[in-house]
């Protein structure tokens, strides 16, 4: 199990330091500033989806915390 855990953390590390050169100038963020370009555009829909899938499947979260908090059976 800790083999996969190491794999994940290594991957994040490469992503993080490999990114120094990538990106845009501060004045080129017009598109990224649009509402529809935010990573979570509809927090309530994301919440209800997380809740439905938490109660119907064995995995949860990923985008944010694990969700749950219910005795959904």
């Amino acid at each position, binding site marked *: 199990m800790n083999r996969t855990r190491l794999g994940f953390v290594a991957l994040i590390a490469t*992503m993080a330091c490999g990114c120094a050169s990538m990106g845009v100038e501060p004045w080129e963020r017009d*598109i990224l500033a649009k509402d529809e370009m935010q990573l979570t555009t509809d927090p309530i829909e994301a919440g209800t989806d997380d809740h*439905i899938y938490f109660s119907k499947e064995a995995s949860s979260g990923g985008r944010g915390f694990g969700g749950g908090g219910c005795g959904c059976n």
Partner: protein
Amino acid sequence: MKKRNTQSVSTALAAATCTLLGSGAPVPVQAQEDPAWNFNTALLYYGEDNSRVNDYSFSILANRLFVDDRVLSMGLTLDTLTGATPNGAIRQDVPQTFTRPSGNAVYTVPAGELPLDDTFHDTRAALTVGWEQPLGRLWKGGVGFSGSKEFDYLHLGINGNIARDFNKRNTTLSAGVSLSRDTWDPVGGAPIPFAPMLDVGATGNKLGTENKDILDIVLGVTQVVSRRMIVQLNYSFSDNSGYLTDPYKFLSLVDGATGDTLTRTPAPGAAGPSHEFRFENRPQARTKHSLYGQTKYYMNGKVLDASYRYMTDDWEIDSHTVDVRLRWPLGESSYLEPHFRFYTQTAADFYRISLVDGVELPAYASSDYRLGEFDATTAGLKFGWKTGSGNEMSVRVETYQQNGTIPPQLLIGNQIGRETYPDLDALIVQFSYRFSR
């Protein structure tokens, strides 16, 4: 000014102005500063086929915006759940009778049908409160509290997160931690692991309440790739410990050769189960790792939102999730958003269809189909539009289908051919309305 009831001056003044100007104002005043409040409300219907679970829920998320991007967010969700869920027993060629969790009544399931517990009725209220603010120019932090109460379940949690921007805000590293304590107070009490289901009135097989603690840690990196594309990668670790069993689920105790559930007769004069059932038992700990990648890509007006999640845990469940949405603008003020999601998972190592009589009990066992092996697909469409005064409404309709397979080696004797994975076909309809004050 003499103490008067409220609004007496302005109402008298409105009348006087009306006579002075010869007419009232055509449209009442609409003046607002930068909106201080953003509201996001939603009504959701989730319904499964053949009278299984139905859920109506109302949610509201209110964000109070303070100067310099400091935000107080408060969320409330109210759910009413009704319908029936599989109770864990296998089908039989004869009717089967079960004792209700309360222990003071029985219910009977016709021959050949998947046994469902139809007493499933619950209302749930969930509350979240959070505060988020910049910490200096490059740091941002937030803390939050969450709580939810059902008839038999209480959740209390706290969480915190912090993020830092690098290289002109193109790269953001974030970390979040959440701690929660949940308490099960099941109807009739939490059953003793592998205890038999007893007659009405007998309570030797039930204990009291149980609780579980959940620690979630999420580490993430968000990277701007280009003017049109942003990518996020999260690693999350989740450690659950304590009572992870479902108190209302149990397994059929079957004959090793025929695979049929052993029959029993209730004590004279009492009502009780017609067959032998043993309450399930799951491990007291579960450690989950997941890797989540999401990208948003802008194609002159259209926005692609694609994400992939890989999860693995020490219950030997591996899952892959792919989620793709494409927001398609229709003119200036409305959009269409088709949504497709594919999910697949392997079974937990202690997932089984039934317990075999006369064989030593396993350490853990559950026949909860959600721990089984299945694929699920969600396909839907969302239509959103901006109303005149700048608020936004949207409606989405989605179908969610689960198709599972029971590994042949888990089936014994007559179970083969009779026991099939309980496929699920559900409809999700949600209406949401966002406005600011």
